[in-house]
């Protein structure tokens, strides 16, 4: 449908409609996973490994079991069904059996009548470990003789992309090495949920998650139950950002509930939350860019390592993303990319906002600046000159069919107003690096400006049909016609549920739209990740609404015909009325003696997996963003303050402009965090900073004003032409800020986050050896595939029988 034919209904598509969950949230009445409560409820607790790698010789639960108030203590042997789970590969034990592979791995679970009792009982579970040598460095893990994390070795997936002639000569070469740290999603609402045993021998699980159906697909086999006996319901989600893609407490709570016959709630503490979900993969990236003397990219080499920690999670998809986006949103005729996702005995890594793109964006944008410097060119000009556009061919040989306004986002970003230069004379310390309590009057404070451009896929890639289902029902109420939308799509804070309501309002011309609580009673909506739900579940609701409208129009025509009238022109809906050729025919209410209901599934266009040479039409659609950062650095203290972030985003079409701004601002904050402060610090696989005291996230004082612009060039073939906007700001903010820091200090800064020591030269740039050779792997698919470990995610998308 083209944008021009959208009908206007209050709170519809294109308006900054109020959030549907806004009022309960400001009142404190919104029920999150950690707020769940049931009569006779027990509190679950997890016993975790203190070792990065150890053999379990035995577990003594007698003392814990006899502790007053304890109702159950369960071990690996008590897992009723399959002993392992996983998103892409079922490689992760529900409870460790004979071996632990990371610090924090669950070994035992228990349920007790009170949280303090549960905690104390957990201290009484005695595990006899034989500590084994651990490998906690990603390059170390690739060396011969390194301790093996899995029987099939230390490589999850190696992606090799050969594009054009990787030996093509160039006039100018620049080379660099870059690192990014392990980042935590730092979801404010910890992992939480409650399992309630049901009379049919099944279980109802209320849980904060990003994808109910993929959870159920992992939970049910482990419980030894058919899927229909495991019913999942979405509890309020306190942020996600990738942290809730993997199963955390789900299976544990269900096991305890089924064993005790009582509801069991598990809520992770903040410390436990750092072990309870996957993190952003730390990266090491070697890059070489070759260009002509006039600044046209000729050839790029990239060697990418991602440390995935102990288990697969979604790591194979993350490394595929990192590989395919390694050269940035530029036309690159020749390239060689070697990207490896490694296993170590570190905590597992998987999805986090940006999903492999931020790590390589940090590197390729630093390289573009280096190239500009080597050529004596303006950094923006080098980028503009090489910018991708519709019709460009990516390094995987994919022709960019959709909108690709790369030039436009760069130009719009640069056109945004710059912050004011500081006035001469003493400055308000509040506005200086270090803030209040610092008394520098602005002397020794240097300003720098940096830019970055990046891109990312929307929806799942590589041949995966991550379809979304929705059911829409229109019925009559005392206050006029109303719509109910049923979708399993998880609202995680981004505003998806408001978007779905906006779509229904626009399609049906009815303002009164409510949402059925998301659950597994309907088919999968796919994950609330990969910036995909506006397109996918928005598309499903649109299709279902159109089916409803079709039936409504059939009734309208039938009634007109029975009254001997013929309706001329196209039938449409607006403000609760049916119109023919723009003229009112009657109230929708009049046609709802029987409610109308329709269920539809939306599929995006098919894609392909990469072949042996890393070639294929792999991504559904692409979104682009450019960011400019202005920073100030106190040269004595190494403290940095971001003065302004300016951001231009390719959104296709803004369904909810206020929501789009919110994603841009919030996403930028997360990218700022990785640029300046956020790092899960590890020591031999142990997290040293598992608290909000020691793991720093940006505060109100750290965040500058964010000025933003949206480029609306509708994406052909998707609902309303809208692209997702959840991730792009995060991936460009980090390189833009670090580029600005380089400009302010003149230092080469090649690791994020940048620390104060780096800014005043107390710490040298991180050094590297030569890139490690490509590992031997059995084929182009992830290694566990060849060992029969596929989790069968695609099975989820088969239509369910009613």
């Amino acid at each position, binding site marked *: 449908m083209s944008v021009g034919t959208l009908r206007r209904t209050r709170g519809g598509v294109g308006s900054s409609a109020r959030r549907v969950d806004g009022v309960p949230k*400001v009142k404190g009445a919104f029920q999150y996973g950690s707020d769940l409560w049931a009569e006779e409820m027990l509190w679950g607790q997890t016993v975790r490994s203190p070792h990065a790698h150890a053999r379990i010789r035995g577990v003594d639960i007698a003392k814990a079991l006899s502790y007053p108030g304890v109702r159950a203590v369960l071990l690996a042997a008590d897992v009723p069904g399959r002993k392992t789970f996983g998103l892409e590969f079922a490689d992760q034990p529900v409870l460790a059996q004979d071996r632990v592979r990371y610090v924090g791995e669950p070994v035992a679970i228990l349920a007790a009548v009170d949280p303090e009792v549960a905690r104390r009982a957990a201290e009484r579970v005695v595990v006899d470990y034989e500590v084994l040598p651990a490998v906690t460095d990603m390059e170390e893990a690739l060396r011969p003789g390194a301790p093996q994390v899995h029987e099939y070795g230390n490589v999850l997936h190696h992606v090799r992309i050969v594009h054009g002639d990787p030996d093509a000569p160039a006039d100018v070469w620049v080379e660099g090495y870059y690192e990014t740290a392990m980042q935590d999603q730092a979801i404010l609402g910890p992992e939480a949920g409650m399992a309630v045993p049901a009379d049919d021998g099944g279980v109802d699980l209320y849980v904060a998650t990003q994808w109910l159906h993929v959870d159920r697909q992992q939970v049910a086999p482990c419980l030894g139950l058919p899927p229909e006996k495991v019913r999942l319901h979405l509890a309020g989600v306190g942020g996600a950002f990738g942290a809730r893609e993997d199963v955390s407490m789900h299976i544990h709570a269900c096991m305890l509930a089924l064993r005790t016959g009582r509801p069991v709630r598990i809520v992770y503490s903040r410390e436990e939350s750092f072990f309870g979900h996957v993190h952003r993969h730390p990266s090491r990236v070697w890059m070489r860019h070759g260009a002509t003397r006039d600044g046209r990219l000729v050839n790029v080499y990239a060697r990418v390592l991602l440390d995935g920690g102990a288990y697969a999670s979604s790591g194979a998809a993350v490394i595929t993303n990192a590989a395919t986006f390694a050269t940035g949103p530029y036309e690159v005729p020749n390239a060689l990319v070697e990207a490896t996702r490694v296993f170590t005995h570190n905590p597992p890594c998987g999805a986090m906002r940006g999903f492999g793109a931020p790590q390589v964006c940090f590197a390729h944008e630093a390289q573009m600046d280096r190239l500009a410097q080597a050529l004596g060119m303006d950094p923006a000009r080098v980028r503009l000159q090489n910018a991708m556009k519709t019709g460009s061919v990516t390094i995987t040989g994919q022709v960019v069919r959709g909108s690709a306004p790369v030039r436009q986002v760069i130009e719009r970003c640069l056109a945004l107003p710059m912050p004011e230069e500081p006035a001469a004379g003493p400055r308000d310390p509040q506005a200086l690096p270090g803030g209040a309590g610092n008394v520098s009057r602005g002397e020794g404070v240097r300003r720098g400006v940096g830019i970055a451009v990046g891109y990312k896929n929307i929806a799942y890639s590589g041949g995966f049909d991550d379809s979304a289902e929705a059911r829409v029902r229109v019925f009559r109420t005392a206050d006029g016609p109303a719509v109910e939308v049923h979708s399993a799509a998880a609202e995680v804070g981004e505003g998806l549920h408001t978007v779905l309501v906006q779509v229904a309002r626009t399609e049906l011309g009815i303002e009164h739209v409510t949402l059925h609580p998301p659950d597994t009673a309907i088919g999968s909506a796919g994950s609330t990740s990969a910036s995909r739900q506006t397109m996918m579940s928005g598309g499903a609701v649109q299709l279902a609404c159109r089916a409803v409208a079709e039936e409504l129009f059939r009734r309208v025509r039938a009634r007109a015909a029975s009254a001997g009238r013929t309706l001329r022109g196209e039938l449409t809906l607006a403000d609760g009325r049916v119109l023919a050729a723009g003229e009112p025919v009657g109230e929708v209410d009049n046609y709802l003696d029987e409610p109308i209901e329709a269920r539809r599934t939306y599929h995006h266009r098919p894609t392909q997996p990469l072949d042996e040479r890393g070639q294929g039409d792999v991504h559904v659609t692409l979104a682009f963003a450019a960011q400019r950062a202005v920073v100030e650095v106190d040269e004595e203290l190494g403290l940095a303050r971001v003065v302004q972030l300016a951001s231009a985003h390719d959104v296709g079409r803004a369904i909810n402009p206020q929501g789009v701004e919110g994603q841009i601002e*919030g996403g930028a904050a997360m990218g700022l965090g990785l640029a300046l402060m956020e790092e899960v610090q590890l020591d031999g696989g142990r997290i040293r900073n598992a608290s909000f005291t020691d793991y720093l996230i940006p505060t109100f*004082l750290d965040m500058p004003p964010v000025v933003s612009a949206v480029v609306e060039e509708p994406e052909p073939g998707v609902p309303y032409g809208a692209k997702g906007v959840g991730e792009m700001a995060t991936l460009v903010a980090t390189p833009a800020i670090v580029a600005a820091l380089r400009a302010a200090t003149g230092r080469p800064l090649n690791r994020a986050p940048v620390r104060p020591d780096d800014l005043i030269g107390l710490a040298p740039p991180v050094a590297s050896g030569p890139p490690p050779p490509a590992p031997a792997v059995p084929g182009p698919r992830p290694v566990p595939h060849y060992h029969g470990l596929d989790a069968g995610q695609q099975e989820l998308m088969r239509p369910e029988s009613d």
Partner: protein
Amino acid sequence: MIVRARVNGEWRSAEVWAGASLLHLLRDHLGLPGSKNACEQGECGSCSVWLDGELVCACLVLAAQAHAREVRTVEALAAGDRLHPVQEAFVEAGAVQCGFCTPGFVVAAVDLLQRDPAPDDATIREALSGNLCRCTGYAKILDAVRLAAQRMAGRPR
């Protein structure tokens, strides 16, 4: 031990263990889960409540410390369907995303506007720097507090 406190205008009592925090008392004994538990160390402000009119982190106060005192929580701000102007402004300005930090922010913002009805941006940032938000990047929260201040300036307090 029995703790008795005047919570949102009503005397309530509960039996808790000596180590229970005020937050645990509110959430798990008095059925007031609006104040959130996100960090347990007083870093995030999600559990901000008033104790005898002073803004505190309920996770860093023992339930016993609240004995015989007055506690006010986010649940007391709206009068039925009528939101407090700060709550109204948070919804309107888009200051709510996942919402987990929202009750703490709303309470801290109300506290700020009680002390300083017309704060400038720097004052707002400083006053709310004890509250963490992971979703919004704080921009819309700043907008919301400004909006609430403007609206409240026109009303008797």
